[in-house]
């Protein structure tokens, strides 16, 4: 299952989790992780297609003519198959790798760009624990922006992660993940000591874009 942004893809996969529904700017989105036993991707449906969604955790599904979004070519978006009007999704009954088998640990050096990985390793360097976005200037800034304002910190941990086979720059994809990773609340973002993040091993789910690991879940 090789995803290429902008190209169609067909695959038989298992749904690994209960789908999550979200509303973004008056649009409805449903997303769930799926896997063919080797590669894991997000299955995504918007609006009309989301309304038709009838999949649940553990279903085995055949996707015909799903689309890997063209917009993912030059972004840091995760590996995704989108269900569009032309896509057929049907449940199938067959012998297929279980959820546990689909979620096997792998080594970073085996993972290509735009692929998910479940990896175990240590944070070996911490670059920052907070990012600052100045709404006035509409750009990321230092703690104090050039315009003189002090933007609210965004809880985002960045540094280097190593599983012993490869050492990659990493970032957490959301404040929720930063909280899980650090055992700290968002309000402590600027005060976390790097050694507090570096003194334990992590089992994470992430994806790689341009040699950078985007941590999406912390499993242990």
């Amino acid at each position, binding site marked *: 299952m090789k995803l290429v942004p902008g190209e169609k893809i067909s695959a038989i996969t298992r749904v690994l989790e209960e789908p999550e529904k979200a509303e973004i700017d008056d649009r409805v989105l449903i997303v769930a992780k799926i896997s063919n036993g080797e590669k894991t991707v997000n299955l995504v449906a918007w609006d009309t297609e989301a309304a038709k969604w009838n999949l649940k955790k553990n279903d085995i599904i055949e996707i015909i003519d799903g689309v890997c979004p063209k917009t993912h070519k030059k972004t840091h978006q995760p590996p995704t198959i989108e269900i569009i009007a032309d896509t057929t999704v049907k449940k199938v009954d067959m012998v297929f790798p279980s959820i546990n088998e689909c979620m096997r640990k792998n*080594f970073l050096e085996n993972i290509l760009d735009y692929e998910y990985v479940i990896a*175990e*390793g*240590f944070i*070996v*360097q*911490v670059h920052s624990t907070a990012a600052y976005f100045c709404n006035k200037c509409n750009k990321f800034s230092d703690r104090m922006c050039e315009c003189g304002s002090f933007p609210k910190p965004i809880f985002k941990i960045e540094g*280097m992660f*190593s*599983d*012993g*086979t*490869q*050492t990659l720059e990493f970032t957490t994809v959301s404040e929720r993940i930063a909280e899980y990773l650090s055992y700290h609340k968002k309000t402590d973002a600027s005060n976390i000591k*790097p*050694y507090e993040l*570096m*003194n*334990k*091993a992590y089992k994470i789910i992430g994806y790689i874009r341009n040699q950078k690991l985007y941590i999406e879940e912390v499993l242990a």
Partner: protein
Amino acid sequence: MNVLYMSAKDLAESKYQRKGKWNTLETKYGTGSTLSFCGKLKSTQETRYGPRFTIEDPDRLTLTVGRFNENVKEDAKEIMNKFKEKKDIHLLLYANPYMKEKRLYMNVNQDNGVIEVSKETYERFHELRETVKEYLLNKKTQAKEKISEDEKTQTKEKISEDEKTQPKEKISDDKIIESIKNRDRGDGVSLKEIPGYLKDPDEMYERIVDIMESGRLYEPKPGLFKVIE
């Protein structure tokens, strides 16, 4: 930065290398510029190069902390003070190899290069290290096997290429006639029994026809040849 998870024991089988501006260590399973060790702190010593820690993982290893970095030197001093009171301290260290006068040194010089960890983290580190080591060693063995397999195939291909390009050794008419005569038990000799047939059956058939035309062979039965005495 390439971090290699190591145990003190791995150092014995490793080779120090200077690669460009990097001091690296080549182990059986990979090369790293930053080496990660995890062990129980056994002793500390203040030296003019900075605190010196001896850890056990269970083999012993001594590292110098903070020779060129005041931040990590301060962290090490705090650990030294703590060690006076508490003896059960496990450390995770990120060191760089350095060789002087044929002696290998481990220097910790990066910020947060020495971190106190729990016993559970110590155990998990070594579980992970073993898994990674096994994976990297297998990968290396497989790569070696593949290279040797590729070399074998290349050698075979070369031999067969050489055979193709080498000029064929031509058997003389006299030799063909002689071999037919020697093999003939009365009914004649089939083409397959004639030396050189297997190498190039078509050519051998043409040769036999030529010799027959020259009047030195005949075909008493289809496919069998006899020498005209």
